[in-house]
């Protein structure tokens, strides 16, 4: 493992992905689930930038990473607005409590 090898970056990405997956699988708190999704998106971004840096050398992978960051911002805004709406309705953010689509 060294900063000049592709595999070291991919290993960091794999570990981040698995920790994010663990967070999404075990938490029932909606905000924690969103945090796990952010970890997974970050690991995907590391892979994009690493492959772009070590394969072609042009900035295509970085462009994709920026798009992913942008979509993550949109996802966080809408997701947290939904969480706040659920909290006002059910007075909890346990994802298992919010199982009805209508009041």
């Amino acid at each position, binding site marked *: 493992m*060294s*900063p000049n090898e*592709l*595999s*070291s*970056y*991919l*290993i*960091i990405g*794999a*570990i*981040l*992905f*698995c*920790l*994010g*997956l*663990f*967070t999404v*699988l*075990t*938490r*029932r*708190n909606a*905000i*924690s689930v*969103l*945090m*796990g999704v*952010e*970890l997974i998106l*970050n690991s995907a*971004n590391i892979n994009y*930038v690493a492959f*772009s*840096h*070590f394969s072609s*050398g042009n*900035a295509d992978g*970085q*462009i994709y*990473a*920026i*798009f992913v*960051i*942008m*979509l*993550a*911002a*949109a996802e966080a*805004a*809408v997701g*947290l*607005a*939904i*969480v*706040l*709406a659920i*909290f006002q309705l059910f007075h909890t*953010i346990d994802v298992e409590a919010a199982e009805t689509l209508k009041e």
Partner: protein
Amino acid sequence: MSVSTAVFYLIALITVISAGMVAFSRNIIYSAFSLLGTFMGVAGIYVFLGADFVAAVQVLIYVGGILVLILFAVMLTHRITDVEVTNRAAGRIPALIIVGVLVYLLIETLRVTPWVKTKELVYAATTANIGDLFLYSYLLPFELASLVLLAAMIGAVVLSRKEIKE
């Protein structure tokens, strides 16, 4: 071991440890603050990969935007006094087994795969190149992105307003 290698190890360690705290901490506020270490560490990794613009965007949007948003949501919804609402261990052991097997398989695959050695790495400023790509090759996705952001903004406002019923 040179200085840059040591710094790389330090950044990788910070990233992985704070991601582990996000995953395993029982207190959601500790989880939210640990995300700061993960996001900053990932920005440092981008610097090592020669992606200066992406690193700056990471700090601006993730640390300055998403993290603050998550902290606001935690403070607004979570009753600070009862800490233990999260993580009542529905499937902690099965999830740990699944994730352990997955991380083992991924890392073994990465280690066994013969990655092609590349040319000598050059570190140059990428911002002008990225700007060119956004306005020539990726113009349509760029414009669609602005539409998506507008829709997300309106959606967030609509979802979080108070409805006044007659």
